[in-house]
């Protein structure tokens, strides 16, 4: 799980252009949206693409993503359970 969390942090930094952050800057239990990293609606859509492209998990809309993208750890746990890649 720790390896997946680290990998996921790197991928999030890359796809969301969080150029000034390193994986160490991201707390895996902190909220991703509203507070914490303060991501927005376009970021949520880009994370949906990330889920499918890297892990083969298809989400149909932003609402589905809301629960999964609560924190990096919650995302990682969901991926571990549902990944097809």
């Amino acid at each position: 799980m720790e390896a997946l969390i680290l990998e996921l942090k790197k991928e999030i930094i890359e796809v969301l252009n969080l150029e000034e952050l390193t994986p160490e800057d991201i707390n895996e239990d902190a909220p991703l949206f509203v507070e914490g990293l303060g991501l927005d609606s376009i970021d949520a859509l880009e994370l949906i693409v990330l889920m499918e492209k890297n892990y083969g998990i298809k989400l149909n809309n932003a609402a589905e993503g809301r629960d999964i993208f609560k924190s990096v750890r919650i995302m990682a746990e969901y991926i571990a359970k549902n990944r097809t890649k």
Partner: protein
Amino acid sequence: MNINIASYCRLTNHKLEVNDIDIQIQKTEASSLNDIYRHLNLSYPKFFKMDNLSKAGFLASELLLKNIIIDKETPKKDMAIVLMNRSASLDNDRTYQTTIQDENNFFPSPSVFVYTLSNIVNGEIAIRNKIMGESSFYISENFSPEKIYSAVMNTFSDPNINQVICGWVDYEFNECDVLLLLIRKENQEKIPFNVNNIYHLYT
């Protein structure tokens, strides 16, 4: 009433000049816009999400408006943004195309698609400075001081507009070509806004 050029910024691959001051920055081919951002010590993480065109226009506007717009929060309803270029958003469009070109690796990117319109650079400048007046974008084969002049004077038809950020913002094939001007209606005569002056600031 006079229509003056209150400020200008010229940004190309070889030059960064603001109101006759040459800003020396070590530039490499690959990341020159990011380097300028860091050199300016701006704290605006959204910058890194922008496409090249928006980065170029945004950086030029930061320099253009430095010491002029101090308060970036108060809505400015009397200020317009009127920009022009040759390549629209093609630089970013080509990037977006790479996310959909291959049927077997088809992952359209929303964060890239957002920038497949040239007027998004107007939006980025507006958001940063809370500029709520008219916002327009035109396409022209070549840089044309006459067209810029005409577009700005037409914008002043709106009696609520007293200031216009205008100019040429183009980025394509790693070539950055930006001239931004801040135009103001004022009582005193300063540097007049006219075709000759626009041309001289570009060349």
